[in-house]
């Protein structure tokens, strides 16, 4: 009997503490699931006396997105005080996919934003960080949100497709913080608002477009890379996935999809062991998508010309990325650790004074391209006789004659 009473008491205690009665809980992070307002995107901008945050939250899949704004002395304060707003719901930041940061705030206080994500247990390190150029993050977030298209969905769509079209890469908080700690600088994807004609009414007033990479320094500071430098950085950081390129030819043009670009980076040393140069070799594989004009793909010289042009474009992108990095004196391409991994002993003296060595280090870039998807291009065998059909040649070889 005594045991039964004890068991019943324990059960009722557990149930009452667990939210089955008046909502008392043992743990402080108890939330009723139906009260959750899921924040998926945070926009942060510099204000005169602090930070302004705008968040886009949804209650469920079917419910429309809602915007909330608050201003605080810091990002943490502004987001923390969201709970005090009369939302009627519990704002949960754990599912924040992307944080849009205004250019001014990024220039001065990006470290603080990263620090908040790293420290606050609810935030995730794989939150994407985007810097908004030519406008405020808040305006972009408002402009993106339409009746049926919440801003987080639009940004998530860009995140999925940006690497596929080779226009950039959404660096996460983890990657940026890690690069800042290792190299003192990091690359961040930039975006800008784009005013376009609405495809349908339920869409927001603005669209979001990639705007290249920005270079952030530890302790503040911001530089922007051109499109070509962005492509080069993606190649060297192995963030490249695919890109569609138009190749002008003497007689027409070729559109190819460059689906593979493997970058191999090797340090070369002098006889006395000093670091002589860095060689970068790009191996590109492209598939022909369309041919326009009179370009004859059966002509080897045409194909070679196309391959050469493609190699030139990508080589130039890589060279410009390295040149900009050296000009800024910021190794955001992580060459130091690549060289260290390749030759840890030989490279040690050069890496000791890397900050001095890096800006003047000769870097040679080579690129080799291969055009594929050539099923309508028949390669004549090496020893084919003049005018011989390749199939006849194959049959001849099979017959052993």
């Amino acid at each position: 009997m005594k045991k039964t009473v004890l068991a019943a008491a324990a059960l009722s205690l557990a149930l009452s503490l667990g939210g089955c009665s008046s909502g008392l809980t043992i743990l402080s992070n108890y939330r009723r699931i139906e009260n959750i307002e899921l924040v998926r995107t945070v926009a942060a901008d510099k204000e005169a006396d602090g930070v302004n945050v705008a968040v886009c939250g949804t209650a469920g899949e079917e419910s429309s997105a809602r915007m909330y704004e608050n201003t605080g002395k810091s990002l943490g304060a502004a987001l923390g005080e969201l709970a005090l707003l009369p939302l009627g719901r519990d704002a949960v930041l754990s599912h924040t996919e992307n944080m849009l940061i205004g250019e001014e705030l990024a220039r001065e206080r990006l470290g603080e934003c990263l620090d908040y994500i790293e420290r606050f247990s609810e935030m995730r390190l794989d939150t994407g960080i985007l810097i908004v150029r030519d406008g405020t993050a808040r305006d972009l977030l408002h402009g993106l949100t339409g009746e049926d298209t919440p801003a987080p969905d639009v940004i998530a769509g860009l995140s999925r497709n940006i690497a596929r079209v080779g226009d950039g890469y959404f660096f996460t908080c983890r990657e940026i913080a890690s690069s800042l700690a290792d190299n003192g600088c990091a690359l961040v994807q930039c975006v800008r608002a784009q005013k376009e004609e609405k495809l349908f009414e339920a869409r927001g007033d603005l669209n979001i477009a990639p705007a290249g990479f920005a270079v952030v320094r530890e302790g503040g500071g911001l530089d922007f890379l051109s499109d070509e430098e962005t492509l080069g950085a993606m190649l060297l950081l192995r963030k490249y996935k695919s890109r569609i390129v138009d190749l002008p030819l003497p007689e027409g043009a070729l559109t190819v999809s460059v689906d593979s670009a493997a970058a191999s980076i090797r340090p070369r040393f002098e006889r006395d062991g000093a670091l002589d140069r860095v060689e970068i070799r790009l191996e590109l594989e492209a598939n022909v998508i369309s041919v326009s004009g009179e370009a004859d793909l059966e002509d080897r010289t045409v194909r070679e010309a196309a391959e050469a042009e493609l190699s030139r474009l990508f080589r130039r992108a890589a060279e410009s990325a390295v040149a900009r990095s050296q000009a800024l004196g910021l190794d955001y391409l992580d060459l130091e650790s690549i060289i260290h991994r390749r030759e840890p002993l030989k490279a040690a003296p050069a890496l000791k004074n890397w900050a001095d060595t890096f800006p003047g280090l000769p870097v040679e870039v080579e690129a080799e391209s291969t055009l594929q998807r050539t099923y309508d291009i028949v390669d004549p065998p090496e020893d084919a006789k003049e005018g011989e059909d390749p199939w006849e040649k194959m049959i001849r070889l099979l017959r052993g004659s």
Partner: protein
Amino acid sequence: MFREKKAPPAPELAEDAPVTAAAVEAVFRGCYDFEARTLHLGGDTENPVTLCFIDGLVSGSDVAEQVIKPLTDPERFAGVRDAAAVSRMLGGSVYVYTAKHREKLGDAAGDLLNGFCALIFDAERAAVTFEVKSQQRRGVEAPKEEKVVKGAKDAFVETMKINSTLVRRKLRNPHLKIKEFTLGTRAETSVTLVYIDGFTNPELVAEASRRVERIHTEGALTSAVIEENIVDNYRSPFPQVISTERSDKFCMNILEGRVGLLVDGLPLGFLVPGTFSQFMKVPEDHSGHFIVASALTLLRYISVALTLLAPAFYVAVAMYHQEMIPTRLLQSMIEAHASVPFSTAMEVILMLLAFELLQEAGIRLPSPIGETVSIIGALIVGQSAVEASVVSPVVVVVIALAGIAGYTMPNLDMGSALRLCRFLLVLAAIALGMFGVAMGCALLVYHLSSLESYGVPYMSPFAGSEGRHLTRALLRRSMTVKRDREPELGTADGGEAKL
């Protein structure tokens, strides 16, 4: 009213008293099935003896044909009296294969209760008992609970002799010993210990014998009487004795080095020691292909995790750790829960209770009605409850998943123990979220790891055993490969199968 009128104590049976017709009749007074009649040996009216038997326990035709007919034959017993008659009967003049000379009343009464008839010589104050058991018993049938497609179809029945015969037919080994015990101060149930002499660990046999002898009960009529008395920790809800209705599974385990128990009146065989991994195996494992059997065994272990943890994990993440839920799923959950009036904790507890109620109702009711109740219940609980916004669909999915995973448990007792633990883990999750689940799991692992069955760690080979035997529990090797036996069983061959 009845409490005040206590039944008078039954007269003590004078076990050592001499056997007389009057004494035997006094013992069985008030038993309508007790029969006593006077016979004249060799047809001689001056040579009367009393024949006693219990109707139903003996075969009437056997008594008439094998006992009464020769006894009344003048050619055999004319003029043969008392001691000479007893001697002639024991010498084979009666066509019964078992005849015993009884001088003690207790022995004679015991024989009568075991399907013997007794011929009482008042002058000799002794009796001769003949075994003429009735053949009215359930025949050997296919297993009802542990069915296999490819495998033996002879399940144990309630009769000990038939069960021991089934075992003997499969293990034709002169070293197979079947040691008998009698349990129950009132019911006197026959229990036998089955093992292979010279192969099974003698310490295991001795310990099993000791525990069976130690059982104090009025009658071993249910399996719990045996199981709870011979396990190491009877408080644990986890089964520690393997019980099976399949004679082939019983014999396979005897060949592995386990000790078996057969109980008269129970259509089950019991095997010790029982370890966790043994409860994850089904007879089908040994009749199917070894790769398929291994995959299914792994699936059963996954089912253990699912049935135990799915509701608790759901409660923990839905109440405390929403960050662990993928965004899309969380959005669906919020949407689904918006119109439900109960908290997640109450919702899950209600669903678990409803599930248990349905299960109990389905089991207790006769088969066709039980199935109907299950279907109606599933419709009501699953569909109607969701439509009425009493519970959210995600909870129904989680509870159904846990329930279905629980049904894959080959052993009913193991399934019941896991269901109980599932409830406790849900309560822990309600109170402390993932910390509660982790603590609950730690306590469960601690409890399971601390269990032993006849000196064998319950969680072997996962704990308390060599790691190299881990695959034995998780996978089934091909029968062409020389198998390692469980080394913990301490068989005489050192754990290596003789091929």
